[in-house]
C-alpha cells in the first residue's frame, strides 16, 4: 500500500497515457511529466514568499503580513494581482527587444534545470546521462540574461549592478561545481538518478547520505554558500542591494517583468537547494530505515523546505558582504577548500573503512579551513590615507 502511495504520480501518468493514441504518446508523456513541475514549483515560490516575509518578521520582532487571508496566506495572490496591474514602464533609450527578452531567458533557464531533478523514486523528467553537467550548463545561461537585463536598461545603476552580479556569479560557480565533484566521484556517475540511488541504502538504521562523511559535510556547506551566492541571496545580495543601488540590474523593470525576475531568482534558489539535496542529503531517501514508508516526494519536499528555512534564517541574520569581501571569500577560501575537499574525498575512497579514514580526512579538511581563514584575515592591509587637498 505504501508502495502505491509512493508511486502514485507515476501510476497516474501511466494510466492517463493509456488513453492517448500511440503516435502522440512521446509528446504527451513529456507534457504529463512537465506540467506537475510547472504547477508545483511556482506554488512553492508563492508559499516561500509568505514564509520568508513572516519568518523574517518574527526574527525581527514584528509580525509579517497578516492582513490578506488567515495569517497572510493569500499575500502572494495580492502580490500577483499588484504586479499584473502595474504599469509596465520601459525607458525610452532602452534596447526594447533585449529588455523584453531578458526576463524571458532567465525564467526559461530557471525552469529548464528542473528536468534533471529526481523528485521521488522514479520521478524525474529526463534521466540524462550527463544530468549534472546539464544543470550547471543551463545555470550558466542565467548570467547571460543578467547581462541582457543590465545592459538593455541603459542606466548606470543597472549596468553597475549587472557587472557586480555577473562577477559574483562567475566567481561562485567554481566552488559550486567543484564541491559537487566529490559527490560525483563517490557515486561514480553524472546522472542525478544514479547519485540518489547510491545514497538510498542503509546500514542498520543509518543512511548512506554523503553529508554524513567529513568530505560530504564540507562539500555540502561549500555548495550551500555558493548556492546562496549564485541566486543573489543575502548575505551575497550585493547586486540587488536594496538599500544601495536600489535594485541593481532589474531597476528599470516594473510590474510583471519584475515579478518574473523574482520568480526566476527563487526558482534558481529552489533548484540549487534541490541539487544540494540530491548530491549530499540523499535526494528522496528517508533519514532512517524505519521511516521509508513515508512517500519519497514527501521527504524531498520536506528537505527542500528545511533548506529554504535555512536560507531565510541566514538572510535574517547576516549583514551584506561587500564586493571585495565577497570575491576574496570566493577565490581565496572557497576555491582552495573545495579542491582540498576533492583530495580528501579521494583519500577517503582509497582508505579502508573505519576510524582512521574519518580522522585523516576530517583533520585535512579542518586544518585547511583554519589555515585558509587565517590567510584570508591577514590579507586586510590598511592603506595610509593620503588627502589631496587637505594638508
Amino acid at each position, binding site marked *: 500500500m505504501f508502495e502505491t502511495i509512493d508511486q502514485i504520480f507515476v501510476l497516474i501518468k501511466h494510466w492517463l497515457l493509456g488513453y492517448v493514441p500511440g503516435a502522440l504518446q512521446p509528446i504527451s508523456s513529456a507534457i504529463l511529466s512537465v506540467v506537475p513541475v510547472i504547477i508545483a514549483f511556482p506554488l512553492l515560490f508563492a508559499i516561500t514568499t509568505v514564509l520568508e516575509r513572516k519568518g523574517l518578521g*518574527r526574527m525581527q520582532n514584528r*509580525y509579517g503580513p497578516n492582513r490578506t487571508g488567515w495569517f497572510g496566506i493569500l499575500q502572494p495572490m495580492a502580490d500577483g494581482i499588484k504586479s499584473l496591474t502595474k504599469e509596465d514602464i520601459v525607458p525610452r533609450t532602452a534596447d526594447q527587444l533585449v529588455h523584453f527578452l531578458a526576463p524571458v531567458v532567465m525564467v526559461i533557464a530557471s525552469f529548464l534545470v528542473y528536468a534533471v531533478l529526481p523528485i521521488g523514486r522514479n520521478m524525474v523528467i529526463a534521466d540524462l546521462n550527463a544530468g549534472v553537467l546539464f544543470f550547471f550548463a543551463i545555470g550558466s545561461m542565467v548570467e547571460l540574461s543578467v547581462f541582457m537585463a543590465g545592459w538593455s536598461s541603459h542606466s548606470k545603476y543597472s549596468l553597475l549592478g549587472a557587472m557586480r552580479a555577473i562577477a559574483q556569479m562567475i566567481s561562485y560557480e567554481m566552488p559550486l561545481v567543484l564541491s559537487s565533484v566529490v559527490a560525483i566521484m563517490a557515486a561514480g556517475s553524472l546522472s542525478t538518478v544514479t547519485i540518489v540511488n547510491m545514497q538510498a541504502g542503509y546500514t542498520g538504521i543509518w543512511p548512506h547520505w554523503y553529508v554524513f562523511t567529513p568530505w560530504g559535510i564540507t562539500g555540502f556547506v561549500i555548495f550551500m554558500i555558493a548556492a546562496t551566492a549564485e541566486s543573489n541571496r543575502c548575505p551575497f545580495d550585493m547586486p540587488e542591494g536594496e538599500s544601495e543601488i536600489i535594485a541593481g540590474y532589474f531597476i528599470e523593470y516594473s510590474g510583471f517583468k519584475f515579478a518574473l525576475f523574482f520568480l526566476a531568482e527563487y526558482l534558481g534558489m529552489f533548484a540549487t537547494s534541490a541539487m544540494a539535496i540530491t548530491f549530499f542529503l540523499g535526494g528522496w531517501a528517508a533519514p532512517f530505515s524505519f521511516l521509508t514508508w513515508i512517500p519519497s516526494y514527501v521527504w524531498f519536499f520536506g528537505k527542500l523546505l528545511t533548506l529554504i528555512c535555512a536560507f531565510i534564517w541566514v538572510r535574517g541574520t547576516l549583514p551584506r558582504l561587500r564586493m571585495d569581501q565577497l570575491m576574496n571569500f570566493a577565490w581565496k577560501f572557497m576555491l582552495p577548500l573545495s579542491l582540498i575537499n576533492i583530495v580528501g574525498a579521494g583519500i577517503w575512497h582509497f582508505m579502508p573503512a573505519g576510524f582512521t579514514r574519518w580522522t585523516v580526512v576530517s583533520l585535512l579538511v579542518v586544518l585547511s579551513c583554519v589555515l585558509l581563514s587565517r590567510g584570508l584575515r591577514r590579507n586586510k592591509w590598511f592603506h595610509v590615507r593620503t588627502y589631496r587637498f587637505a594638508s
Partner: protein
Amino acid sequence: MLGEGIVKGLAETARNFFGSYVNKERLTTVQFPEERLPQIEATRDFPFLVYDGTDPEPGLRCVACQICEKECPPKCIYIVKSADKKPDATGKAQFYPAQFDIDISVCMSCQICVEVCPFDAIKMDVEFEMSSEDRFGGLLLDKYKLAKSNEYYNKIHPTEAGAVDAALAEERAKAKLAAEAKAKKDAEVAAAKAAAAAAAASAPPPTPDATPAPAAAVTSGETK
C-alpha cells in the same frame, strides 16, 4: 573560533523567532486600526474653531480679525468677514466670519494660527483620519465642519483647555466687574445729572454766577 560570530548571530535570530511565539511582549507591533497607541496630550493635526455653549452660530469665539489668515505660512486659511456684528460671549458686538475655510491638504500643522489668535478661537484638533476620495473639495473644511464645542476641546486637550477656560473666565470676570463699575458710574452720573436737572428745574431762575458754581462744585466733587 572560526565561524563563532555567525553561529551566535543565528542563535540570536532563532531565539527571536521562537520567542515571538512564546511571549507576546517581544512583538511591539500595534495592529492599527484595531489597536491604537495612546496619543499624548499635545498631539496636533489640523485646526478647528471653538465655540462656547451648544450653538455654533452665536457661540463661535472667532471675530474674523484675520490675524491667523495673515500669519499662516502656506496660506491655507480663507476668511470673509461678515457685514454686521453680533454680540460675543462678553456681550460686546463683534464681527464674525461669514466664511472660514481651511484647506487641510495644504495645512502643515505648524500651529502658528493657534499661537497668534488673541481670542483663543482656533485650536489644534487630534483627528487625522480624514482621507477623502474627492481630490478638490473633499479636503477643504468650511466653518460648519470646523466648529467644535468647548466641551470637545476640553476632552482632547484637558490641561490646555483648562488653562484657556481659566484665563477666559478671569477675563470675563474682570470685564464683568469693569462693566458693573462702569454701569455704577453711569448710573451715578445719570443720577447726578438727573438731580442737577431736578435741582435746576425746582430752584428759582439762577443768577449767572450762582448756577455754574454749584454745578462746578458738583462736578469737581464728583471727579475727586
